[in-house]
């Protein structure tokens, strides 16, 4: 288990990489950008990006309604 701050909310997830976080939140194939501690992590690097306790992750959702 890892404790992450995701979009301002503390979440405990069983995830080792950013890809696993995205999967567990049900965000696969959604138009989103991920930021860790204020830095953008491109989607091609999610698999290699390990997550650790206390990381601040922000998912920016490109919402489609209008």
């Amino acid at each position, binding site marked *: 288990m890892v404790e992450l701050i995701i979009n301002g909310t503390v979440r405990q997830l069983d995830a080792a990489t950013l890809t696993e976080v995205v999967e567990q939140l049900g965000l696969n194939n959604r138009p989103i950008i991920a930021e860790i501690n204020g830095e*953008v992590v491109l989607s091609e690097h999610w698999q290699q990006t390990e997550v650790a306790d206390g990381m601040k992750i922000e998912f920016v959702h490109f919402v*489609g309604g*209008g």
Partner: protein
Amino acid sequence: MTNTLTQEGHRERYSRQILFQPIGTEGQKKLLQSAVCIVGMGALGTVLASHMVRAGVGHVRIVDRDYVEMSNLQRQMLYDEQDAAESLPKVIAAKRKLQKINSSVFVEELFADLTPSNIDSALEGIDLVLDGTDNFQTRFLLNDGCYRANIPFVYGGAVSSRGISAIFVPGKTPCLRCLVPEADSGGETCDTVGVISPVVDIVASYQAIEAIKWLVGDIEAQRTSVLSFDLWHHRIHELKQTPARVDCPCCGLKLYPALHQDEKLVLSLCGRESIQISGHAPFDLQEWANKLEATAKSIKVNPYLIRIELLEHVRLVLFEDGRVLVQGTDDPARARTLYDRYIGS
């Protein structure tokens, strides 16, 4: 152009924004000579059009394929009960209101679905494009069309209590494709999870202000971040601008994929009052049944399909292989609208 500040009443009409220093007399003259295109005249589009027309943008082109319904009135600020009762095309109802607001600007309507075949004429003579669309397929088309024609494109999106906006300027900023790959809205549309009116007003106002800065030429003041927020939970986030991607199919490789592909979704008539739309990835039927439950009058699921009775006297049938049948209409544009509403593209 006859629309200049010397025209009678113009100094008075625009006096408050002329007093605002960064616009001033020079900025107002530029606005009067400018042309913008607003694609989508729903919630965002009506707020955008109101801002542009009131500000005196000389030529406002509005594009939409849909007509006014009762469920629009909660947030689509140019329409009223009469428009819904008459099922008026949105561009017609909007034009009437806009011309009452400011009869001295040229409001030009295009009652059509934006496609690769009509996008060039929709963008002709336009200085800036404002996004009022409700789906990503049209947004990527706009993104590619604008970048090829070297026109700034102001993105906006709203759903639930969340909103986002950014200005994309060819040659200066990354484009929408640099930030997110082509995707759909994952079933999260205003018609499945709802939307509240203040979010729409704020997103469209953020779009409008970047448009006005661009049109008056105050490039220094231009915001380059992607601004997103959740109004209900009061969270605001600014994503700083990332560099344009050299391998971006739009602004890097200049391939503009959306302009060359046939529409991804293929519509075909299937008997009386039934239109099939194919092109979606396979559906997880149980997941979609859960998603659509709240908005449906009734839902039936079997291992092969979901049948959803909607409030608008139409049915959607979702098949496991990604096909959707829209039943209860013979009108392809209407079928496409319902598809975008409930499935999202």
